[in-house]
């Protein structure tokens, strides 16, 4: 249902599998409930993969359109979250490719953009986090931005979406062995940078 908050929240209590089942049947309210539930993680992933918040929202929207069309192909309704995130991964890569073709951005500019984006954004003060932890996360963001793109993608898809090597391989159109290698190199570089930072 649209509109009053009381009505919206009805579906927010329903588990993923049920919502996905209803959505596959054509229930748009159930689909929207899924979108709201997993939206923030989808947005966060898309943002890390594309480097910008604006692109992230475009990706989320495209993902939801594609997901709606392909809901019947989802074999395990309980796995809808992972399925949505995989689509986010593919769409993020596509989105970057289109943008690069159109505007001719090279990798350095991309990294600079995501770098600036994070620092321009006002810090969200989370009382759970100490000041030290916040700057550790910031240091990780910087280190991440400096990674070669393919390594960064593998790392984000693994750490954010918990995808398997095979799933990442499909999303990035490379072999699972390449995924394993790039992931390892990313981690080695990041771990080393963070050790030095301390």
């Amino acid at each position, binding site marked *: 249902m649209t509109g009053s908050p009381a009505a919206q929240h009805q579906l927010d209590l329903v588990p993923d599998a049920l919502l996905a089942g209803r959505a596959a049947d054509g229930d748009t309210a159930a689909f929207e409930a899924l979108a709201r539930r997993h939206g923030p993680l989808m947005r966060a992933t898309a943002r890390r993969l594309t480097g910008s918040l604006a692109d992230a929202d475009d990706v989320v929207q495209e993902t939801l*359109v594609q997901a709606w069309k392909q809901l019947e192909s989802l074999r395990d309704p309980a796995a809808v979250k992972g399925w949505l995130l995989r689509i986010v991964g*593919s769409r993020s*890569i*596509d989105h970057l*490719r*289109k943008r*690069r*073709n*159109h*505007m001719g951005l090279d990798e350095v500019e991309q990294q600079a953009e995501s770098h600036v984006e994070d620092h321009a954004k006002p810090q969200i003060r989370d009382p759970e986090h100490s000041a030290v932890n916040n700057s550790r996360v910031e240091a990780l963001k910087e280190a991440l931005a400096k990674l070669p793109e393919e390594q960064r993608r593998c790392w984000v898809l693994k750490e954010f979406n918990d995808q398997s090597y095979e799933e990442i391989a499909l999303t990035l159109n490379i072999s699972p062995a390449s995924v394993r290698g790039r992931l390892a190199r990313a981690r080695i570089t990041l771990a080393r940078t963070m050790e030095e930072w301390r």
Partner: protein
Amino acid sequence: MTEQLEPVGMAPAPTTQPAAANHARSSVAEDLLPVIQGVGGVAAVYQAQPLWQSIAGAAIAAVTGESLPLVAVTEGAENVAVKVRIGVDTALPAPKVAREVADAIRKHLFPRPAAVEVYVVKLGQ
């Protein structure tokens, strides 16, 4: 999975036209946009051909990275076909606004004959 491009020959028009005609067409579409937006009651203009519905559209956009014009214009031998999807705000009656949009497009294209399709896809808000 990454989307596969459809083979270029499949859908009618855009990819088979020479570049010059492409440019001419997209500037008619670009010119029409403010004409439509200027009609009282038009709250928004939406993509006439949603990407996922248009194979040719998806093919071009994927290759060039450019977005399709909001207003779809097809130049035929007989007339110019225009398709537009609009949102109308609640202050004015939508059927009337739709008719005025069609009139405005027709006037703008005059003396070339036009066949205009207007879809009101959103009412209010």
